């Protein structure tokens, strides 16, 4: 079932949660709403669910105007950040709840409910937990129960509100992969709210990035990663690197000679750590800056280096494969020549990505 979000605005007092947001989500698609806290992503999800009503705009579910429909009528599965399991019910009763509260006419028989719950518990790999209570389960298990409970009523749309953010990193990653597999099996239209860039880029078919109540960019994870539409998106996705403990390099080139300077005045540019080239010898046809190695993080498949640019003292992060690192054999205190392969430039919201030719540099 498709979801059409049309010109949604929402105001809380003087705070603008959402400002004219439009987005269409296709049937069977898995879309991530990604943004920092306060960006309006959860508000948008709650509006889709019918838990909040927008000040303006409308929500169409499968082409049908649903803005005024109550949450209980929308045929939606909702998964909460803190699980929201019914604490006084067993896992079985939790999963069966949505079926057992249906009106007498629609309600499946006791036997059918039992069968359906058993199926779902099998799907979330918690077959033997039916008689336990939520407090006896770990966080990851509870969230799987919550998902089973949401799926029990065969929702046409599945909405997940930061479902994995209360879990530790390892479980989070497992559940993320598992959610993707379940989605591939069931093909239910899914909207996932998250502030975790890696999660969004890894799981979703499409990512919608929100900032300050506005939609910044929508696209496939690949296109968003490769062509960030704004400095905000670049910075925000840069946190993917930060998440791995890496710093995004931001280099200014106003004061440097080079072909880029004549194109754009006072632009800012971004270079991802792995897009920096390092060499002990300056290639004859390159412009490069000299930097000294401050620190080397050599644990893991990628080697991360903290550099300090000579003169300005600006701190820059670089990243390279193990093989290249072994060739360079850098240790703290060494001086290297540094230049970028790519620069992503932003100038008054214009974005361009430059593959630097020979002769260009920073």
């Amino acid at each position: 079932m498709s979801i059409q979000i049309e010109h949604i605005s929402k105001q809380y007092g003087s705070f603008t949660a959402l400002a004219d947001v439009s987005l269409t989500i296709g049937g069977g698609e898995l879309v991530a709403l990604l943004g920092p806290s306060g960006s309006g992503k959860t508000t948008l999800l709650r509006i889709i669910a019918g838990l909040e009503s927008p000040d303006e705009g409308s929500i169409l579910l499968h082409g049908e105007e649903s803005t005024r429909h109550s949450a209980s009528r929308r045929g939606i599965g909702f998964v909460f950040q803190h699980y929201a399991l019914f604490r006084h019910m067993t896992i079985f009763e939790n999963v069966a709840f949505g079926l057992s509260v249906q009106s007498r006419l629609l309600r499946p028989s006791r036997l059918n409910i039992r069968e359906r719950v058993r199926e779902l518990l099998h799907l979330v790999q918690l077959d033997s937990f039916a008689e336990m209570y939520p407090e006896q389960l770990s966080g990851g298990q509870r969230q799987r129960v919550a998902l089973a409970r949401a799926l029990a009523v065969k929702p046409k749309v599945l909405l997940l509100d930061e479902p994995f953010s209360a879990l530790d990193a390892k479980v989070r990653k497992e559940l993320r992969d598992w959610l993707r597999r379940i989605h591939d099996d069931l093909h239910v239209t899914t909207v996932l709210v998250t502030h975790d860039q890696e999660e969004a880029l890894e799981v979703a078919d499409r990512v919608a990035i929100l900032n300050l109540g506005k939609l910044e960019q929508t696209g496939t994870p690949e296109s968003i990663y490769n062509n960030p539409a704004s400095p905000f998106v670049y910075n925000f996705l840069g946190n993917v690197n930060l998440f791995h403990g890496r710093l995004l390099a931001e280099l200014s080139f106003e004061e440097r000679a080079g072909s880029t300077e004549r194109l754009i005045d006072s632009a800012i540019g971004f270079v991802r750590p792995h897009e920096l080239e390092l060499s002990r010898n300056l290639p004859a046809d390159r412009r490069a800056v000299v930097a000294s190695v401050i620190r080397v993080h050599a644990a893991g498949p990628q080697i991360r280096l903290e550099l300090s640019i000579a003169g300005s003292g600006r701190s820059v992060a670089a990243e390279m494969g193990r093989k290249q690192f072994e060739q360079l054999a850098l240790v703290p205190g060494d001086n290297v020549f540094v230049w970028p392969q790519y620069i992503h430039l932003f100038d008054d919201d214009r974005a361009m990505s430059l593959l630097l030719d020979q002769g260009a540099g920073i």
Partner: protein
Amino acid sequence: MSSHHPVSSSSLLHPSRAQQVGRVTLILIALLFLFGFLILPVAVVFTEALSQGWKMYRDSICQADVLSALRLTGLVAGIAVPLNLVFGLVASWAITRFEFHGKSLLITLIDIPLSVSPVVAGMMYVEVFGLHGWLGPWLSEHNLHVIFAVPGIVLATVFVTFPFVARELIPFMQAQGSDEEVAAVVLGASGWNVFWRVTLPNIKWALLYGTILAASRSIGEFGAVSVVSGHIRGKTTTLPLQVEMLYNEYNFTAAFAAASLLTLAAVVTLGIKKGLEMTTGIRRGNEEEEVDS
């Protein structure tokens, strides 16, 4: 000494001699105070009540006036407590689940009966419903009796007890949050289903706890009821009023016998309350941990 408790080195657990003396002194003072001001008077109630023997005790209680006072007290509590239960639930629900203007005012208003002297509460009702009050002429035209009659006693009791349930529920429901209810709504549950299958099971112990406090107060209320009752023997005297009347008539044995019933009611209430605390941990605040590591 520390060799027996190698793990702990806290001075609270291993007090010096001076600290130990101080500790014992404090405990003794507390115990003496408790004994002198609580246990001794309660014991006196029972010894006085039984001073003329069991037969006299039984006869004192089985007087028609005392029995009627007992019935009236039961009736009043039987009306006031359910009313407060419903009011407390509604108020707590509104306060913890909705945002509205005047919410903080409502929370303050709920506390008024706890801060106003019960005598003042009684006088307010006399002023409104009494013969010379605002509604007095209209009521007497229609031959309705509120003041110096049972309805007045019920009203006064409802007033003094109405914070108890709400004050128990509000912090409890605030701590629990509304996630489970929202989850139930999204799963298609009706308001009725949400209340009976999700909300009520979650708050039942806190609700019972508040109800017990309200019941205990409505049985024991004296001041407010005294003003509106008119002390008509066998008709508008509740048990606390009956105790006072017997006492003023120098009928000490009967007064203490009736008082012993009130004391017993209090002891039973305390017992249930303690039992609830132990089984559910309401007072210890061990809210089920929702956020996982």
